[in-house]
């Protein structure tokens, strides 16, 4: 009977160990971080939609089809995009901050562990969590840089058209419009890739990934 109980307790430990590797402090921060990642994802979705509106505005400007008041819509959409971009920057900082807090709390928890195997398991999990987040952060920084370049291009176009808006000025800016559209198309695609990575990271942070 004793042997059976002992076997059961080992089996039980094997199942529970990964869940116990993080205790309530770091789990609480993980929950906040996952919520923050959700908000970041929603902001990126809003930015993508706004970029898609802007692409339509630019295309219709180039076509000479201004029946939809495209320049005014372009200006409004660009202002909204810049506002969303600022919110994204703030939210990214929040996610980074929570990552730092979570790792610090988790590391502190390790120092209180007496079991050597448990300590090693938890340290490995912390290393993996850091590596996963570093990969996400690298992608966020790269796309953030491209987003700044794109906003600069769109800002220049907006200033140019504000000073002179006519079919001639639209024609003269065709190359710049084309460059902005290409950049916007790439951005929409890259952000979809970033959101995929963010979603996978959120599952890891929440501990609901099946890997």
């Amino acid at each position, binding site marked *: 009977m004793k042997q059976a109980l002992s076997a059961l307790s080992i089996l039980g430990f094997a199942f529970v160990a990964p869940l116990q590797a993080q205790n309530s402090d770091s789990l609480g921060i993980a929950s906040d971080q996952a919520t923050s990642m959700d908000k970041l994802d929603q902001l990126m*979705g809003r930015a*993508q*939609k706004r970029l*898609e*509106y802007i*692409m*339509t505005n630019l*295309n*219709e400007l*180039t*076509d000479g*089809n201004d029946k939809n008041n495209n320049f005014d819509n372009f200006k409004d959409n660009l202002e909204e995009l810049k506002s969303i971009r600022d919110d994204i920057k703030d939210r990214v900082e929040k996610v980074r901050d929570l990552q730092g807090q979570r790792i610090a709390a988790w590391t502190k928890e390790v120092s209180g562990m007496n079991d050597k195997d448990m300590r090693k398991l938890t340290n490995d999990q912390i290393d993996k969590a850091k590596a996963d987040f570093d990969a996400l952060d690298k992608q966020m920084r790269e796309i953030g840089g491209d987003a700044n370049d794109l906003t600069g291009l769109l800002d220049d176009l907006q200033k140019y058209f504000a000073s002179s808006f006519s079919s001639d000025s639209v024609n003269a800016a065709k190359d710049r419009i084309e460059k902005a*559209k290409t950049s*916007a*198309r790439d951005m*929409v*695609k890259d952000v*979809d890739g970033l*959101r*995929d990575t963010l*979603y996978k990271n959120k599952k890891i942070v929440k501990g609901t990934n099946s890997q």
Partner: protein
Amino acid sequence: MNPLRKILLASLLAGLALPACAESLDKLVPQAAEIFGRFKREEILNMELVKDAKGIVIINVTGFSIGIGGSGGDGILMARTEDGWSGPVGITTDGGTLGIDVGGTDNDLVILLMNNGAVSRWASGEHFGSSSAQAVMGPKGGAAVDATMKNRDFNVYIWNKGAKLGVNFGGFDVNINNEGNANYYDKPLVSAKDILNGAAKVPESKKDSLSRLYDLLK
């Protein structure tokens, strides 16, 4: 109840019962890409089944089913053509309980139309009675797809702030968003049929904003 309160209450109920106000396709297409992207990313959708679908409906439905009845939806319908997916047809839905299990909710739906008959029924602006269609929740991403799933009329996917809802599908009308379609295609009398069979082409100026949805559908 005093007369003023009665009038106010009647106005409120009438307002809630109205069909959804049709949105422009310039906004519905990015909204559809956003909905489909989330369903794909979170593996709610089975992409193997998407490859077999003859048509797709991507729609946001707001429901007020408790005590008031009815729901309103705004979205797009697309069909598979020999050259890939057709352009979008703007549609609205009203009445019924399209995916609404509880009242006052906001649901995103992706409905895979598995045969050409089902596509035609949506394209003709039909009334769907509560038992008029074989519709069940589609299999999740990664699940094995069998002939039953491919042969039924619809596979329905619903998202409601992450909650899993049963399919409650019927008693609603589909309306073609003629004004939205005319503006998008720049053709006053463009028909849903012409859009879905590829006779009405997507204008060049709209292709960039549509490319994300086409990419996601691959």
